[in-house]
C-alpha cells in the first residue's frame, strides 16, 4: 500500500475538483478500494473521501421513480420500505450479495464502480491487461472458473461482480453523474462496458466525474419477478450465474420480459433481441428454454468455466419459472424453488 494524500471535501463541487486528476480516487465505503490498495493493485495519489457529501437520501421523484443517492448504503437501500414494496427485485439482489457487514459499509456508487474479482487482477505479480494495459491476460488458459462466457475479448475475460447492478440493469436504471463538464445521465446499459481492447476501462465514467445518484422508474410487472443467484457456497460468494427476471403475462401470453444476467460478462448482460423474441410467446418451460438458448447463442467457455453455459441456461429457465409464478426467490431461503 502506497502513501497518498487524503482529503474530505464538503461539497460535490469540491469533490469534483479534487477528483480531476487521473490517480485520484473517490473513497466511499472503502470495501473494495482499500482492499485493492492493500494488494498494491490500486495506487491512488489522492483519496477523496466523499462520505461527507449530501448524497445519502432515498427519494421518490414526482414521476414516481426511485432516486438513490450515491452514498446510500446497500443495507439502507435494501431495507427501505418503498424499495421493498415497489422495487423488491432490487432489494433482493442487494441482499444476495456480500455479507451484512459489507453491505452496511458498501455504498450504491461504490457498488457500481467495484472492480472485477478476477484472481489475476488482484495479484500484481501476474500479467493482467486490466491492471496493466498491454501486459497480457493470465486468465485466458489459466484459472477461470468465475470468468466470462459472453462478451469477452482476447484482451480480457473478466466479469463485473455486482448483484445490485444486475437488478438495476433489468430495471432500466440510469446513473446520474456530475463532472468538470457538468451533469449527465447514463443509461445503465451504457454505464458498464465490454472489455474490447481497453479492458482497463470498466465503464464510461470520465476522469473527474462523480456518481451522484441512480434513478429507477417504477416497474410495472407486480410480483412477477425474481433474482436468482447461483454460487459456490450458499452465502458470501460472488455469483457464478445470477439472473434478474421480470415478466408481464396476459392470459398465458408474454407481453413484456426483462432478463439480466450477472457473473457472465464484463457488464450486467441484457439481450434485447432475445427478450423481444419471447414477446407474444406462451409462458412456459419451453419458451423459457428457447430464450435461454437465444441469450447464450454466442456463449463461449474458457475451460474451467465451460459449465457456466449450461448452468446459465438452467438458471434462466428457473428464474423465468419463478417470475411467471409470481414467487420470487427469497434470499433468506437457501433452497431454490
Amino acid at each position, binding site marked *: 500500500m502506497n502513501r497518498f494524500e487524503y482529503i474530505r471535501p464538503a461539497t460535490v463541487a469540491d469533490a469534483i475538483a479534487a477528483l480531476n486528476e487521473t490517480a485520484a480516487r473517490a473513497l466511499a465505503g472503502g470495501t473494495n478500494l482499500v482492499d485493492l490498495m492493500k494488494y498494491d493493485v490500486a495506487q491512488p495519489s489522492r483519496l477523496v473521501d466523499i462520505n461527507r457529501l449530501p448524497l445519502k437520501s432515498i427519494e421518490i421523484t414526482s414521476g414516481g421513480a426511485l432516486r438513490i443517492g450515491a452514498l446510500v448504503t446497500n443495507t439502507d437501500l435494501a431495507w427501505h420500505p418503498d424499495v421493498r414494496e415497489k422495487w423488491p427485485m432490487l432489494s433482493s439482489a442487494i441482499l444476495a450479495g456480500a455479507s451484512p457487514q459489507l453491505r452496511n459499509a458498501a455504498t450504491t456508487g461504490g457498488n457500481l464502480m467495484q472492480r472485477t474479482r478476477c484472481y489475476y487482477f488482484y495479484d500484481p505479480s501476474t500479467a493482467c491487461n486490466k491492471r496493466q494495459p498491454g501486459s497480457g491476460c493470465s486468465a485466458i488458459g489459466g484459472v477461470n472458473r468465475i470468468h466470462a462466457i459472453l462478451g469477452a475479448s482476447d484482451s480480457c475475460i473478466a466479469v463485473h461482480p455486482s448483484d445490485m447492478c444486475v437488478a438495476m440493469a433489468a430495471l432500466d436504471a440510469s446513473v446520474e453523474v456530475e463532472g468538470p463538464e457538468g451533469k449527465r445521465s447514463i443509461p445503465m446499459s451504457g454505464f458498464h462496458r465490454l472489455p474490447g481492447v481497453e479492458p482497463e476501462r470498466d465503464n464510461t465514467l470520465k476522469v473527474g466525474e462523480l456518481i451522484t445518484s441512480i434513478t429507477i422508474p417504477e416497474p410495472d410487472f407486480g410480483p412477477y419477478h425474481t433474482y436468482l443467484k447461483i454460487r459456490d457456497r450458499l452465502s458470501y460468494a460472488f455469483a*457464478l450465474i445470477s439472473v434478474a427476471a421480470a415478466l408481464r403475462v396476459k392470459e398465458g401470453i408474454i407481453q413484456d420480459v426483462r432478463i439480466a444476467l450477472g457473473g457472465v460478462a464484463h457488464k450486467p448482460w441484457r439481450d434485447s433481441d432475445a427478450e423481444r423474441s419471447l414477446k407474444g410467446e406462451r409462458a412456459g418451460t419451453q419458451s423459457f428454454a428457447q430464450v435461454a438458448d437465444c441469450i447464450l447463442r454466442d456463449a463461449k467457455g474458457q475451460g474451467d468455466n465451460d459449465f457456466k453455459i449450461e448452468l446459465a441456461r438452467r438458471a434462466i429457465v428457473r428464474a423465468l419459472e419463478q417470475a411467471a409464478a409470481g414467487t420470487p426467490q427469497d434470499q433468506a431461503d437457501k433452497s431454490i424453488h
Partner: protein
Amino acid sequence: MSVGEIAHIGRSTSRVDGRLKVTGQAHYAAEYPADDLLYGYIVGSTIATGRIASMDLDAARRFPGVVEIFTHENRGKAAWLDRSWRDEVAPPGRPFRPLQSDRILFDGQPVALIVAETFEVARDAASLVRIAYDVDAHCTELEAKRAEAYVPPKKRSGIPPPPDPRGDAEQAFQDAPVKISRDYRINAEHHNPMEMFATTCVFEGDGKLTIYDKTQGSQNAQGYVTSVFGLRSKDVRLINHYVGGAFGAGLRPQHQLFLAVMASLELERSVRVSLTRAQMFHIGYRPDNYHSVSLAADRDGRLQSIMHDAVASTSHYEDYQEAVVNWSGMMYHCDNVKLTYHLAKLDTATPCDMRAPGAAIGVTALECALDELSYELGIDPLEIRRINFASKDENTNKQFTSKALLECYSEGAAAFGWEKRSPKPRAMKEGRELIGWGVSTGMWDAFLQKAQATATLKVDGTLEVATAASDIGTGTWTILTQIGAEAFGLPLQDVQARIGDSTLPMSPVEGGSWTAASNGSAVQAACDAVKHSLFKHARKMANSPLADASFEDVEVRDRRIFRKDDPARGLSVFEVMHAAELPEITEQGKVSPNLRQMLKYISYTHSAVFAEVRVDEDLGVVRVTRVVCAAAAGKILNPKTARSQILGGVVMGIGMALHEEAMTDHRLGKIMNANLGEYHVPAHADIEDIEVIFVDEKDDKVSPLGVKGLGEIGIVGTASAVANAIFHATGVRVRDFPITIDKILNSPRPS
C-alpha cells in the same frame, strides 16, 4: 448445595477464558506491546522456482522510517546443520531456512524482510522492492508427478508407515463375486485459522528474549529458536497464552518466528513480524492427494479384499508423511489387505498436519468406496459397515482398549431416522430438491504423550495448576481448571490454570487430540501428589484428627482435609499449612505411555456420521441440511467444549466435501485464490442442523483419566458421509473433492 457436591468432570462448563476473549483482554501474539517495537514485513518470491538474479532495494531503503532490509545477502547468523533446524514434528529432509540463499523453492517464499518503525511504512516500502529472477521450470501439479511417486525412504517419526500386506489381496479381489475399483482425489486445503501467524520478539537486553508466538507448542518453538540461533535455553522464554486457531499449521515454527528473532538479534531491538492472509497460503497445507481403492466382497457383503494406494504431495526439501492408508487396514475386518502410500515432489512449501492429518483424506476415500460397494451388493450402507466390524486392529493384531462403534452406529442411526431411508438413489424428493442420506465411519488415534505438570496449593486453599500446554481454541484452559477443581473440591474460580509458556512443565505440542488425555492426566497426577503431601503434613500435626487415617480414608474438599467416614474429623488446609509453616505446597505430576500395555492394546476414537443433503435437480446446488455425528471418545470431561470440537470438525468436513480448494495456476505455480473471499470455507448459510452424540464408552486403559480426545474425530468421515448422501440424492458419484456444482452437472446422469 455445598461446593463439595459439584462434580466438575463431565459437567458442561463454559470456557474460563471466554470472557477475556470476547472482551479483547486475551492477548494474541501480535498484540503484546513492547518499547521501541519495530515491524517486519515479508516480501515473498513471485516465482515458484529459480534464483534471485538481482535485487533493487534502493528505493525501499531510502524510504523514511525503514530501519533495515534483510535478504539472503545480509541475513543474521544461524545454525549450519539441518539437525539444528529440525523441530519436534519435522518430517525427514532439510528444513526450510528463510533467507538462506538465492534459491527459490516455492511461490511466496520469503526473499526479504523490511524492518521499519511502523507496520505501514514496512508494507509500503515492500511494494518498492524490485527483484529479478532466473526462472527454472517448476511443477505444482500432482497429476503430472503421479508417475514419479515414490515410497519415502526415511519415515517420519511418530507416523506409522503402511502395514505389511496380509493375505493375498490381489487374488482375493480376482476371486470375489462383487468388487469395485475407484479413484478419488481430494484437493489441497489450507488451514486458515482466524489469527494470522505472528511473532513479537521482545529484546530484553542481557542476551534475553521474550517471544510471543502463534504456535501450538511453546517448548517446540522455544527449542527451535535456541537451536537455530545458538542461544541458551534459560535466555529464551516463549509465550503462547492464547492461540486463535491453528488446525495443525502451528505445530511447526513458521517463517515469521525465525525472521522476527533474527531481526531482533541483529538490530538489538524488539521486532514484530505478522503474516498477511495471502502469505498464510505459502506455509504448510493439507497435501493434494489421489487414491486408488479396490474393494471386493462376498455376496453377503463380507469384505474379501481391500487395496488402497494413495499418492500425496510433498516439497522438494522434505518428505512430509501422514498415515493415510493405514485406516483401510483396521476400520473393517478383512483377511486380504494391501496398502501403499507414495509421495510426489512438487514445487511448493512442505505440507503440514491439518486436522486429522491422513485420516481426513484416507478415510474419506475408503468410506466413499465402501459406499459404492454397498450399492453393488444391494446392501444398506450402514449394514455393510456393521457386517464388517473389526473387533481388533488387524494391522497390528492388538486389542482395542475400547471401541463403542456399534453403539455409534445404532445411536446415530436412531437419532437420524436412518431406518426410514429408501435404498434407491434419487428416490426422495421435495420441491425441486433431491434428498439423499449418507453414512460414514470415522476413526482417529487416541494418543497419550509424555507430559508433566505441577500443582500448587496455596495457604488460602486455592489451587494453581501448570503445564506448558497450548489452547488453540480447544478448551485446554477450561478442562485443566476443571480437573484441578475436581481434585480439590473447589469452585472453578479458586483454580488458576497456567499454560502457554515454555518455562512451565514439559508438554508436547498441542496436536493429535492428545492434550486432554496427556496434560490432563499430568495435572491430575500433580494434584494427587499435592493431596498426598497435604495429608502427610496433616497427620504429623499434634493431636491430628487424621493421625490414625490412611490416605485412602481421607478426602480433600472445600479447603478441608477430612475423614470420608466422618467429615467432621478433619482440618482446614490453612491449619495444616500454618502448622507446617508452609506458604504453599507444590508437587509435580507426570504421565507417559504405558509401554507394556501398548504391546497388547491400541486406542482409537470412533464415530458414525450421518448426513442429509438436498440437491437442486437442475442446478446442482447442494445443501447439507442435517448431520448427526455419534462419537465414542471415552470419558467426556466437558460436554460443552467437547461438542464444540465436534461441531467445528463437522463444519470443516462439510468444507472438505463442498468448498475448500486451493486453485493453483500450474503455469505460474501460484495459488490464485489466496484470500478468504475466494478460498471458500462454509458460511453460516451452509451449515444447518448438526447433532452431536457421545456414546457411553468406559476405557480404563487409554489414559489415567479415561479420556480419548476430540479435536479431530469430528472431521473424519464427514466429507464421505456428505459425498455418499449426494450420490444417494442424485445417483451421481463425484470422486473429486470438493464437490462443486460443475462436477455434479458434468457427471453422467443415471439413466
